């Protein structure tokens, strides 16, 4: 399976094109559906951090989900079964790299499905889908 990876965060210019791309997968504009995060931990003068889901082989987020809404996938990562999710945020609190994002409008997590759509919009080769 392919995995979204950060190749070199020092090339990142913070344009957030990847975030907008990820959110646009469902066809709408804005950012609520993005599951990739670009942030400047110590201001724009510092390095930018690009947060992507690492598709863990034994995903901690799935383990804490009380309703088993997060189903571990073969090869790593999880799939969200929205109808089961009760919006408790335990998965978000458990992910130590903050790769579980939150869609406030739906009150549900958004977690990367390793589709690679964002990669096509990074103008500076920061992220890549690796086999």
């Amino acid at each position, binding site marked *: 399976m392919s995995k979204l990876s950060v190749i070199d965060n*020092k090339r990142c*210019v*913070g*344009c*957030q*094109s990847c*975030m*907008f791309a990820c*959110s*646009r997968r*469902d*066809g*709408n*504009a*804005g*950012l*609520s*559906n*993005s599951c990739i*995060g*670009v*942030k*400047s*931990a*110590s*201001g*724009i*003068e510092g390095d*930018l951090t690009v947060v992507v889901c690492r598709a863990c082989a034994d995903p901690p987020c799935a383990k804490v989900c009380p309703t088993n809404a997060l189903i571990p996938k073969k090869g790593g990562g999880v799939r969200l079964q929205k109808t089961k999710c009760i919006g408790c945020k335990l998965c978000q609190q458990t992910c130590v790299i903050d790769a579980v994002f939150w869609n*406030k*409008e739906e009150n549900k997590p958004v977690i990367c499905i390793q589709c690679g759509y964002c990669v096509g*919009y990074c*103008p*500076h080769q920061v992220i890549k889908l690796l086999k």
Partner: protein
Amino acid sequence: MNAFNDTLSRVLYIDVKNKKFWVTERKDLFDKYIGGAGVAIKLLQEECPSGADPLSPENPIIFAVGPLVGAFPLASKTVAMFKSPHTGDLGESHAGGRSAVAIRLAGYGAIVIKNASDMPIYVAIHGNKVFFRDATTLWGMGSSLTAARVMREREIGTGYRSIMRIGKAGENMVSYASVTVETYRHFGRLGLGAVFGSKKLKGIIISGKQTLQVTNKKTYKDLYDRIYKEAVNSQVMKKYHDIGTPINILNLNNLEALPTRNLKQATFEYAEKISGENIAQNYLGKRVACAHCPTACIHLANLREQYSDSPYFYKTTFVGYDFELLYALGSMLGIEKPEDIFMLIEEVEKFCMDAMSSGVVLAWATEMFEKKLITENETDGLNPEWNNTKTYIAMLSKIVNPPNAFYKAMAKGVSHAAEIYGGKEFALAFNKNEMPGYHTGPAAHLGFLIGARHSHLCNAGYSLDQSLLLTQDVAPETIIDKLIDEEAFRQILSSIVVCFFARGIYNLDLISQLLATMNINYNTDDLKRIGKEIHAEKYRFKCREGFSFDKLEIPGRLFETPEPTQKINKEFMRAALNYAKEKIKCQ
């Protein structure tokens, strides 16, 4: 149609005196004037009483974004409007960073700040909630970077937020104090920082990440891809990314149009050294982008400074630079070394004051001292001279904390200072706003004079000089017509709101299609009409506040220092201004 849900027409009103906020639906304004500059000027007309003192609680601060923000690449700017404490005229300033996307995705099309607080505060806007935080401890801090860090660390929303703040220049109401956004972008010109200061408003943090609905998902994605591809493949955008605007240092120097040493010259012997090319090769540390802009035109240089008290003790700072800074704090002051320019930039960044105005004010003072029109009495013991960075740094500090009447006057701009101390012929300002770095010919200067915000950014002046006037004789009337047409078009760009650097990509036809995906239906003729209307509304405000073409003064220096077209003369300029007066008509 009715089910279409967009939050653009929600206007957030914040009363900083009574610590209250409310939201009003203003579809009336957004339907008619799109957003951004169009809506901001209407809100300013409503909120700012005629004749208001710009530093009184009566003067509102308006921020507005447009329908394309948050939806399409390069739609990354926020428009600020206020009555300018620097000119007493319309104050309009644009900034990017993450401000526009954050405002739009927090669920607003505009924000109106009213009244004045009785204690220092900063305002935190997170989605539907507004918090008033006590900023007493941040007031008076030496560097505005610290205030930003405190806000960053105490507030939520990292990755989806924008932080605006002022420095000491704003607190002390220097009339050209700026508001810094995300450290490297600014509401730079015309003194928004002083208006913040007068309201005891240290900063604003705003976060949001909502969804924006589109009318047709497939069309939306297709149009998005088209713009994105153009943005990353276009040669123009590549130019902004590679060397950035500083490419103009050598271009203008070769044309003999680069204002140098208070425009005593239009070429600079050290242009090569302070050129974008040289700086990119030897100092460029990294580039950053505004939110939703793949171009990344913000260039940051690495400044390594040694502490004087210890041989192996250094500090390293990233300093943002672009053409206007290299001109105003470089050639205009005869600064020969990039490191010295960076140190001056660092200083104006620390205080948050407009770099262009600061440079021009210092250049005027240097010439005044050179001509012995002022002495050490006025300069408080300093000897301003070209290329003397240390003295300039000391002077900036005195402008912000004036020890005497001379620095107090400098803190109100070059026109004001020259009014008192003389040297008006070489006080380089247009309608009191200090000149930008283009001595390319009459069109550039006419653009600064008649442009609704007297900035180079709203008109095509310097490109008209090069594309037309350099090679042909053109009537002054033609120049004015072209300037006004272009400015009307740019009102559309600043209402939807996209970055002016993308003006080659965003033509009216495309804009009309993009607006349709956001459920706004205007054809290109409608857009042209609205552009003209917005331009007229700005002039309505200006005239109401006392603007008059007859009062416009042209600094004598412009006629003395040759420019490439050799067409600047008093008759040409007067004829042009008379025609502009007829055409625009103040009523």
